[in-house]
């Protein structure tokens, strides 16, 4: 049995980019610094599902015994996020679902936790997803530095491509950045104080401990994935770690931004995309203390060229041309009346429909082979009753049969494209027809017969709760254009 480590990986970065020039009211030019922003139908959960789907590509899902979600931006104080993610990923019921939250270091803590679980032999594989969707106050400096993204790694001890060979942690208590219960925005104490005595001092300390434990120095690493909030702080941490610029994993400042709990895992995934057997990777992260991890690369992901991770999403972008659209997408525009806190969707109905809504599960008729979504009792084609086999369509593709552009649906960029799609099964035959919204693209891109794939999204907030369902998106290549 080999050592526990990372078997495969995936990532997700929202397609939408907010140029910093647009925040200050200027017209964006190509090449302007920008940040990745979750759009109105995205949050930490939907991004986690997307990264998780990418990570589980080609993996036998029945071997995943636990899901750990690492985030500081859960929608609920009481109600798990990992359980929603696991259901959307259609993972079997007899698994552990765990949230690790509260700290920006949650991502690296979760990876270490998962490795310990596998080493202890209590689980076979653990899907670790770090996803964060933090907001700074509109037009604040913090807003410009943050970004939204998710990174996923599958931890196991079978086909390990990167083994955790050393780690060190430091705990530290200070008020540097925080959100109180109910705060929408990240707050912080004075810049130089929190950088010097928080991020840099703790990162330097944990790196020193790691080097002392392992006898390694900066020059022993092929790549260093260093958590920082901006380029200047990154420079200080590089210096403390003895890392030269050519060893540095691009931190994507001005492209994605600092993505909180998912930042260090995102850099790690980015490094794994290019890593070769024998490489040593240094990963540090910070938040209420600091972590330093050493991964020794054993091999490459089998399907690395088809795997959607950081490099895929870096090229897939569309820019927001108007800051108001961003404010609207993140529900930050002032309105006189808050949306009513009605009961929202019946939790009972939601319970009965969870297979369809969260897992995109339908069924195929045992008599005539007709696929049906949502599930029903009687076949629409042959009329036979209760003769069904369950099917999950989230990994299939589809094609647009028809559409309309709905100007009434509340959206930061109306009209909303509503489609009827036909699922295309892996063998090319038609699956069920589903009424779905079209996401991540403008109304100009919709046409009949357009090939689509499915994305898990927050479809509305009835009852001021996030309500999730699947949307369709153009097959994700490198979409472009302005929002």
């Amino acid at each position, binding site marked *: 049995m080999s050592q526990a480590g990372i078997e495969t990986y995936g990532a997700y970065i929202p397609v939408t980019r907010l140029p910093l020039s647009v925040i200050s009211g200027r017209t964006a030019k190509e090449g302007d610094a920008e940040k990745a922003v979750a759009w109105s139908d995205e949050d930490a959960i939907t991004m986690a599902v997307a990264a998780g789907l990418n990570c589980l590509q080609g993996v036998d899902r029945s071997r995943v015994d636990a899901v750990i979600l690492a985030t500081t931006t859960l929608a609920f104080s009481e109600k798990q996020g990992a359980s929603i993610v696991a259901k959307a990923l259609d993972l079997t019921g007899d698994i552990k679902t765990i949230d690790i939250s509260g700290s920006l270091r949650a991502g690296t803590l979760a990876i270490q936790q998962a490795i310990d679980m596998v080493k202890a032999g209590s689980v076979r594989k653990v899907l670790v997803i770090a996803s964060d969707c933090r907001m700074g106050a509109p037009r604040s400096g913090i807003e410009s530095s943050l970004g939204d993204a998710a990174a996923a790694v599958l931890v196991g001890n079978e086909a390990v491509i990167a083994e955790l060979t050393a780690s060190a942690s430091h705990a530290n208590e200070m008020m540097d950045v925080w959100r109180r219960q109910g705060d929408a925005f990240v707050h912080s104490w004075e810049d130089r104080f929190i950088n010097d005595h928080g991020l840099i001092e703790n990162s330097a300390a944990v790196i020193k401990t790691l080097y002392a434990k392992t006898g390694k120095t900066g020059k022993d690493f092929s790549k260093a994935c260093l958590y920082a909030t901006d380029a200047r702080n990154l420079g200080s941490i590089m210096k403390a770690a003895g890392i030269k610029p050519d060893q540095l994993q691009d931190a994507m400042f001005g492209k994605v931004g600092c993505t909180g709990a998912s930042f260090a895992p995102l850099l790690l995934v980015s490094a794994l995309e290019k890593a070769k057997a024998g490489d040593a990777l240094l990963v540090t992260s910070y938040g209420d203390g600091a972590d330093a991890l050493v991964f020794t690369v054993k091999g490459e992901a089998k399907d690395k060229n088809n795997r959607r991770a950081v490099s895929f999403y870096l090229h897939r972008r569309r820019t927001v041309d108007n800051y108001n659209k961003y404010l609207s997408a993140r529900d930050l525009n002032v309105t006189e009346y808050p949306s009513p806190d009605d009961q929202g969707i019946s939790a009972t109905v939601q319970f009965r*429909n969870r297979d369809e809504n969260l897992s995109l599960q339908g069924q195929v008729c045992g008599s005539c082979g007709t696929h049906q979504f949502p599930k029903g009792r009687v076949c*629409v084609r042959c009329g036979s009753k209760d003769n069904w086999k369950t099917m999950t369509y989230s990994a299939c593709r589809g094609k647009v049969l028809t559409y*309309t552009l*709905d100007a*009434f649906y509340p959206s930061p960029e109306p*009209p909303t494209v*509503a489609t009827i799609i036909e699922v295309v099964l892996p063998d090319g035959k038609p699956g069920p027809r589903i009424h779905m919204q079209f996401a991540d693209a403008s109304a100009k891109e919709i046409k009949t017969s357009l090939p689509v794939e499915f994305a898990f999204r927050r*479809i509305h907030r009835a009852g001021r709760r996030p309500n999730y369902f699947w949307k369709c998106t153009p097959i994700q290549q490198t979409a472009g254009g302005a929002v």
Partner: protein
Amino acid sequence: MSDGLKNKVAIVGVGRCKFGENWDRSEEDMIVDATYLAYQDAGIEDPRKQIDAIYCGSLYSKNGPVEVSEALKLYKPLTMVLNYCATGTEAFRAACMSVAAGVYETVLVVGYDKPKDRGVSGPSVNIRDVRDLPATPAGWFAVCAQPYFEKYGATREHLAKIAVKNHHNGTLAPESFLKKEITVEEALNGRMISWPFGLFDCAAQSDGCAVTVITRADKAKNFRKDPVYVKAVASGSGPNPNTDPDFDFCRWKPTENAAAEAYKMAGITNPGKEIHVAQVHDCFTLTELLTYEDLGFIPKGSAKEYIDSGYFQLTGELPVNTDGGLKTFGHPTGATGVRMIVENVLQLRGQAGPRSLKKQPTVALSHNIGGFPTGCAVAILGIEK
């Protein structure tokens, strides 16, 4: 084999109130206004003795059928019928069957709705389940546009011409809500609601009530000398077409099925010739277009040529929506089907005033379809027995 409803029931009284944004009128006001017009039309002086039962239909009812018994202060058997936009015709159908079965002799049919008390402009967006949105009625019907356009070459301009026709007809109906002539250009430039439907492709939301008094055909002349006979009332429904793997987005089975049943019941073999005037469901202009074809008035795919030639205009071969339809009356859902029957009765009796046709019709059809669409009802009336 059933022998249907043909010539068993007659309409002897009709009434419809002013349709519109009736801010200062309640359900009670509208029900009383329309019902007392129908009483007067039927020569009913003592409804407590002359009416045996009531069938009513309302989609937005706040309190259910009691709204009707309360308004009319009647102690009678009362049934409320519900089938989305076909609610009005379905209430009429249920009432006709009760008379044909000999259970009741004279029955009041009350279709009404009061959506403008809800404080929302435009369609209601109901959230019952996560997957329901966006689910405005415009969005449900609009999904048929692009496939039809691609297959048969019709365009938004053909839809616009339907709106122009109905707006014109509506200017001639005293009880209509919108009385405004529009041009094709105005219709095409209306604010987008759900592509390809602009504002002028959509029926308005309005309040209204329409009422008929029906009785046994053999007793009809006790009420008036020119009763209108029910030739057929038929209903068709189905599951959501959008999840039907065989649906081609160019036809609605509920209409085709209801029409086939109605024509068989009425003995009609060539509807394009034997139907002289029709009120069809024009919640959206495309609904009217597809319905021309689904009812078999013209071949599938040919609507654009007939629209261009003015075939369905007031002066055309087969006038459709002679009072301006849902487009100008608005769509108080429970009222609509009954309102159409009222218009057909007026046309058959030659009492349509400026909306009169160049040739006096003797057979008239009305049609509703609603839901996704999932439910349809068709009524055929004739002046001759």
